[in-house]
């Protein structure tokens, strides 16, 4: 038999494992840091660099979960109130009942697991579009925060929390603990998405859910697990937020629109809004980029009323640049 000639054979436009997006983001972030640093030397001081790095951790944690959800062609708006509720519950218990950090961690994860699973079950078994489900649970969960806190707020948690949120894991290498934690979680998520059956199922569902179903993949179960995972990451981010800031209010998470930020940095990082492609490293770099942008606005003495608009313009520019490189699709 002769080889079957394939007339319309084309190579993939971009090789699969290039790091173009990541390298671009690093270059842009470093470039921006240096540029602003030239205008204001304090911007590149050790203290501010550490601040910008730490500031991106909470968003990164939320956005990692969001990236998995978007890669599966879903969306999770409820991450912000899940973050807020976990921070509030752990914070109040720590403040009034002396809840330890060791006990707060499983508690936060349980909160995220339960709330995320509710999202997942609604999306996967009742076939309600994810944007509708999580729009509903967004209000529901932030309502729970109001009910639970009953007007109180958290401002005095034990020093172990603050030490975790601001300290260094090793005294020899001055890398802040949250950054180390983030890198470990990033590595885990990356491994899961790239190398486990569950991760490949997430991408398969994002590409074509009916094909994934026809291939015998447990689509419903995978969907539930992804939303549960997103909830757990958001709740963990809530605990991290509590440790880092030492406080929790009823608007933690929702006030900063962390749900929208997490979607934006996922897209900046190279995750396809239509699903099927997820770039976790890009997401973390995107969060760092956003953190640098927001801090730069402060250092450049941009009036505060312009922050939100400036942030929006930078997000649009970054996402557009990403889409532009991919070229027109026929």
């Amino acid at each position, binding site marked *: 038999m002769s*080889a079957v000639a394939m007339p319309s*054979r084309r190579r993939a436009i971009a090789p699969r494992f290039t790091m173009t997006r990541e390298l671009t983001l690093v270059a842009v972030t470093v470039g921006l840091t240096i540029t602003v640093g030239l205008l204001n030397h304090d911007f590149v001081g050790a203290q501010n660099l550490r601040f910008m790095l730490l500031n991106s951790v909470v968003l990164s944690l939320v956005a990692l979960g969001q990236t998995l959800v978007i890669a599966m062609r879903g969306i999770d708006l409820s991450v912000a109130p899940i973050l807020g509720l976990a921070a509030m519950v752990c914070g109040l218990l720590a403040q009034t009942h002396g809840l330890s950090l060791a006990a707060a961690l499983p508690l936060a994860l349980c909160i995220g697991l339960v709330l995320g699973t509710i999202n997942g079950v609604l999306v996967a078994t009742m076939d309600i579009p994810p944007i509708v489900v999580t729009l509903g649970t967004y209000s529901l969960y932030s309502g729970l925060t109001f009910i639970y806190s009953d007007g109180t707020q958290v401002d005095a948690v034990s020093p172990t929390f603050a030490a975790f949120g601001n300290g260094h894991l090793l005294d020899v290498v001055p890398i802040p603990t949250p950054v180390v934690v983030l890198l470990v979680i990033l590595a885990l998520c990356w*491994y899961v998405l790239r190398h486990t*059956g569950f991760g490949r199922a997430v991408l398969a569902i994002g590409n074509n859910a009916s*094909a994934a179903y026809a291939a*015998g*993949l447990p689509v419903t179960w995978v969907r539930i697990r992804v939303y549960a995972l997103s909830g757990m990451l958001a709740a963990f981010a809530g605990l991290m937020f509590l440790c880092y800031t030492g406080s929790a209010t009823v608007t933690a998470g929702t006030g900063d629109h962390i749900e929208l930020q997490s979607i934006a940095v996922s897209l900046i990082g190279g995750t396809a809004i239509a699903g099927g492609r997820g770039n976790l490293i890009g997401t973390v770099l995107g969060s760092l980029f956003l953190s640098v942008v927001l801090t730069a606005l402060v250092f450049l003495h941009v009036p505060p009323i312009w922050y939100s608009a400036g942030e929006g313009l930078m997000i649009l520019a970054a996402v557009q640049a990403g889409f532009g490189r991919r070229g027109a699709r026929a």
Partner: protein
Amino acid sequence: MIQLSREPVAQALLGARGIAKRFGPVEVLRGIDLELRPGRILTLMGENGAGKSTMFRILAGQLQPSAGELTLNGESLRLASPHAAHAHGIHLVPQEPLLLPELTVAETMFLGRLPMTGAIFRHVDWKDVRRRAQAVLRMLDLDIDIDSCAKTLSLAQLQLVECAKALLHDCRIILFDEPTSPLTSHEVDNLFVIMRRLAADGCTLSFISHRTEEVLEISDDIAVLRDGRLVDSAERGSFDRARLLSTMVGRTLRDIPRRESSYVTEQTVLEVDGLASEPSFRRIGFQLRRGEILGLAGLVGAGRTEIAETIFGVRRPTAGSVRLAGETVTSKPCHDLIRKGLVYVPEDRARHGAVLSMTIAQNVTSGLLERVRQSAGLLSDADETRLGATAVRDFRVRCAGLDQPLRELSGGNQQKVVFSKWIATGPKVAILDEPTRGVDVGSKEEIYELIEAMARDGMAVLVISSETEELVRLCDRVLSLYEGELVAELTGDQINPAAVSASYLGSAHAEGAP
């Protein structure tokens, strides 16, 4: 001889007893008894909407029967999901290859069954994925890069990857849901070689096809469905073409004749001059006259669809010009061309032709919304229903009602709706890309008569078809393409099956070359 599986293949006998399926009020299958035996190829034949695909989806666990039971080696078998079907070694190669655009070819082939390795951390064995994907593609003699993204493959390539996938998974029962329609004859031959090899290995195969020649060639057993019932079932030996066709449509078909009357006039409506869109095709020139039916013959990938897309303004030309009724319209946007009276009915309806989630009536009217009476910018439901009803009647669309979503219709009936949508705009020139792809024999004749009626009414029709019989049946003139170039023009008595096939196979360039 290739070793298809590591162990001797266990034999599997898949049976169906009294299978019935209803979708709401529509009874799709009634009391079907089938027996898929090891080492044999059973072909399901039947018109569109006869229930063949539905039967396959039940066998593959994608649908649950409303009544009846399945058996595997005599024991009752319940297939709650495709997963369960896989677990029993049943693999369905679907009719329309499902696209996973961002995944690599290798991963697509292992979808749902990625090999895992590692004792503590179970992870995907990518080395094994690539090695086995490469091996099976080589076995099938396919020149496809396993690392390319699925979105860069053509329909034919995706189909072949699907077939490779079945082989890859050591499935003992393989169901092919009309795999051959988008394949070239060489690719079909390749597939049949593999199918016979699998059958010789003791696998149980079943196959859906509309093409009587290939059914008679490949089958061991043949079962014919009509309107959801099993009307005939026997070994191949007792069937011939005439018996197949007559049981399928329930009446005796005459042989496909050449068209006697011609409506060709002297008035040129479409002029294509030196058109090229590299690398797909180049130096394409022809004229299309009022009332003429012009055929474009060629292998899949010869550039026929690309030519149509370029004329229609979807694809950018690299050279040449297109004139419609004397006016130059090269690379005008397609909505302009539609207004000027050029329509293009594409081949792949799921991608370009129709909105599957919308109703029949909405699909019919989506091309001519300005004809639906509007008041205050709102569309008139009554008009939409009227136009939809006309289309359903004229094209004999089999459906439960006008407000049934297109998705629920069989492939052929979907195609009829798409077709009617464009014809309803009353164009000067119609380009029909594989107008009867996936359409059963009986409906094909209806569509041919319709195309003839279009020509009689003074329309100029360009038909792209991979079916020689179709071109012979329809065309006043046939242009043959080979690898993006015109290689032959056939007229009059030259238009016979042998000459048309020979003209585009690359071996007969000399014959009637322009």
